[in-house]
């Protein structure tokens, strides 16, 4: 199955998820809750990737690959996601919050 990640062609196995393919291909997608030996919960929303033709960013760990799927791991939508996690999980928006 032909799948494009960041405009580069990769050969995907059927019923593989995006994160499995990207791990095999050596493309790093940040993640917290995904582990290959555990069931997929898709709750940390850190591995969100942009897929052509899909409005919202989708979690790479739970989205299966499709023929001719075009995936972008560093698109504008995505940068916002990774920025979010700089903001959301690592730094709190303001340290004053912890006093509340």
């Amino acid at each position, binding site marked *: 199955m032909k799948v494009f990640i960041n405009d580069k062609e990769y050969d995907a196995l059927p019923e593989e998820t995006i994160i499995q393919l990207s791990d095999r291909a050596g493309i790093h997608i940040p993640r917290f809750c995904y582990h290959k030996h555990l069931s997929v919960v*898709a*709750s940390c*929303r850190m591995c969100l990737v942009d897929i052509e033709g899909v409005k919202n960013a989708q979690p790479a760990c739970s989205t299966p690959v499709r023929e001719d799927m075009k995936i972008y791991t560093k698109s504008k939508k995505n940068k916002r996601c990774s920025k979010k996690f700089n903001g959301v*999980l690592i730094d709190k928006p303001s340290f004053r*919050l912890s006093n509340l």
Partner: protein
Amino acid sequence: MNIKLCTETFHLNNPASLSTYVKQGGYEAWKNIVNNKISKSEVIAKIKDSGLRGKGGAGFLTGLKWSFIPLSDSDKYLVCNSDESEPGTCKDRDILRYNPHSIIEGMLIACYAIGASTGYNYLRGEFIDEQWKVFNAALEEAYKAELIGNKIFSSNLTIDIYALIGAGAYIVGEETAMLESIEGKRGMPRIKPPFPAIKGLFDKPTIINNTETLASIPKIMLNQDGWYKNIGINSSEGIKIFCMSGHLNKPGNFEIPLGTPFASLLELAGGIWKDRNIKAVIPGGSSVPVVKGDIMMGVNMDYDSIASVGSMLGSGGVIVMDDRTCMVSVLHRISRFYYSESCGQCTPCREGTGWLYKILSNIIEGRGTNKDLDQLDRIASQIEGHCICALGDAAAMPVRSFLKNFWEEFEYFVDNKRSMVI
């Protein structure tokens, strides 16, 4: 036009009883379908043609939703979503209280159309005192009259309907969270796909419809083709209950054809109280973007018009605010709701809603800075579209729209540590 669908029995004596409902032409559609052996595809086609949209919020075409169900012989389920928890929405509670038989008949027709033999009506926990009792009494009456159960009207049709009561979680109004709750698990949304029409309740194909949608179905089936379609306007066919609340003289539920101007809906609700002016309107329950009052006065109540001013029709819970409302306080209260109702499954919503609430609390308590306002917008934009279910969007959309429409009021609050209007 004075057409009533779901609110037909509201003004009658003893509105919830079977005899009242039958006098209004109740169960005629159901009898007609069973006795004349109208095929499932015909029922679905009729609902599809009517253009009936889901009345719960998303506005998805009901007939189209039904047609997604696989034709296989496996077990299927119908779930009626009566977990009406959207702040500002109070239509389903009145349908359950005053017209429960229309829901039962609608559920029977829907069960028949999708080939399900079991239907569940999931009521929100707060309904236990009144609506739950009324609905169960109606269900008992319908069983006694042999309208539900085994061998309905001596055909080989068996349909059972059960009422379930929730425990008061907002999130269970999300369809997949409701399925989890019915299965006895924690009410947390599932990852889609697979969609419930393929793999829903107990892993079987399931259709979930709103109470008002199902209650509309008997009348659509009873009348001839095109009747429902001719009520509203093009692309927003039919009739909808709007729950008018807020600073009004006569708040309440008003069932009006879609496409009615907002100004006439406001008139029905008695206008703004104390002769004040309109400031803002939330047109579809607290989770849709707010619209400024003067813009709203020129809008018609239908899906496209409301979308053109950047909001949504949603569940039809119209919250009207007068010119002495502090928008910072309103947003603070709304964000408090989403903060406490977030199920905690996915990070952006669990963390983000709390932060939104805490930053707004800071502002309200006079500790806000101008940076906080940008931060609010940024956090909201990072929640929007990144969550498993629509609750994340629901929490983020009001924040962004309040900031966009009433920025100067927020700025004034931060600078002066008090509200601009009080």
